[in-house]
């Protein structure tokens, strides 16, 4: 991370899109785990995710970018086919 000398004067952010550099992995207690076999590619999780942490891949399938996921669980609630489960960060997921 930047030292006090490297941070622009007045703590300004002088480049657009700086949130891309901000990893929130450590904020999470639960992480979403997507079961691709259950997923119908409906895109509701992608619509509901408040952080834009869910990416659409070229083949139309979805992937969760855990660098930007804060673990709110909204995607799990939005998923009608229950393809997303929230798993504690200190537990291993089965998928």
């Amino acid at each position, binding site marked *: 991370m930047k030292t*006090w000398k490297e941070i622009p004067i*007045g703590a300004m952010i002088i480049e657009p899109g700086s949130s891309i550099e901000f990893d929130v992995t450590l904020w999470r207690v639960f992480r979403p785990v997507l079961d691709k076999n259950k997923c119908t590619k409906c895109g509701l999780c992608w619509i509901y995710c408040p952080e834009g942490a869910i990416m659409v891949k070229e083949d139309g399938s979805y992937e969760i970018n855990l660098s930007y996921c804060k673990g709110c669980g909204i995607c799990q609630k939005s998923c009608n086919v229950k393809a997303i489960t929230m798993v504690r960060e200190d537990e291993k997921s089965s998928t």
Partner: protein
Amino acid sequence: MKRVALSGNYAVAYAVKMADVDFVAAYPITPQTPIVEKISEFIANGELEAEYVNVESEHSAISACVGASLTGARVFTATSSQGLAYMHEVLFMASSLRTPIVMANVNRALSHPLNIWNDHSDAMPERDCGWIQFWVESAQEAFDTTIQAFKIAEEVLLPVMVNLDGFILSHVYEAVELPDEELVRDYIPSKPLINRVSPKLSYTIGVVGPPEYYFEMKYQVLEAIERSRNNINNVNKEFSKIFGRKYGNINNYMMEDAKYALITMGAVTGTAKFVVNELRKKGEKVGLISIRCFRPFPMDEVIKLLEDVKGVGVLDRALTPGGPGHPLYTDICCALYNAKNKPIIQSFVGGLGGRDILVDDFIKMFEIVKEVSEEGRPKPCVYIGLRG
């Protein structure tokens, strides 16, 4: 150059006019009001081309100043007492956003009880807000320091507060030498600072500083104010060459061979000088130090000046209830703690809420300083003129 009779307030207003400020936002408060009244008059007369914003409070005044300063404008505001207290939270933002605002604070006591008279209790709670703080002794110094303040503020990108004592300085007319306007404009040319809110730049200003960043962001202010010591010294030197009046971070008087000294701030220094002269006539080796630049605090200068002094009295005009000592006293003690040779340091508090500190009071203070120095230990704080 011309010599005119000006009140301390008008001296500041003339300095602001000559500094060719671009933006003023202020709210009236006694005893500061004549400053902004005079400035609005200058603007109305066409003598000063600036945007004057009448705001609904001091909180808004300083907030508007921060915004204007971010556009690169030269910005001024003035306040007193409750007004300064009302600005409190924004003062920290002004320094952390590195906006070079210049503010005159006409020192007045804080309520309760309501009191419009002079002491230092308004500015002392703002010691830690990251502003450079000057304290002046005369209307001339108020004028000169305001001019210097723009230079320093814009060099180090920190706000500067010029403190002048309410009524004693703000409303008393003194002879002031006004330099030619061109001389001032050459000294502080209106070079636009960077406009940080220009649509051409995609800056984010006023960011969230999470635990990973806040420390580094605040440290920048600390580093800037430490670095400003050099700028202030250079400005003092340069100013005396151009304008002929010499100022230091501390103004000392008869300190060369002094055995006993007093440390003061602001206009009361004038009375103290008179007393030093009287005591010198009687052969007493007494001297006086007035702290002109309170933030950054002139530790090295204080240590050096007090090397051969036996006893020193520190006069506070504000209180730190329940603290280890009153504001100036604790700073002086802290500065001297690691000094090789340190005097006995006696604390005094006086002149609260506009009560006069008289010649006899200063004579008494020198007597006490002498007495405790001979005893080798100071008394608890002496409250000058307190009944009961």
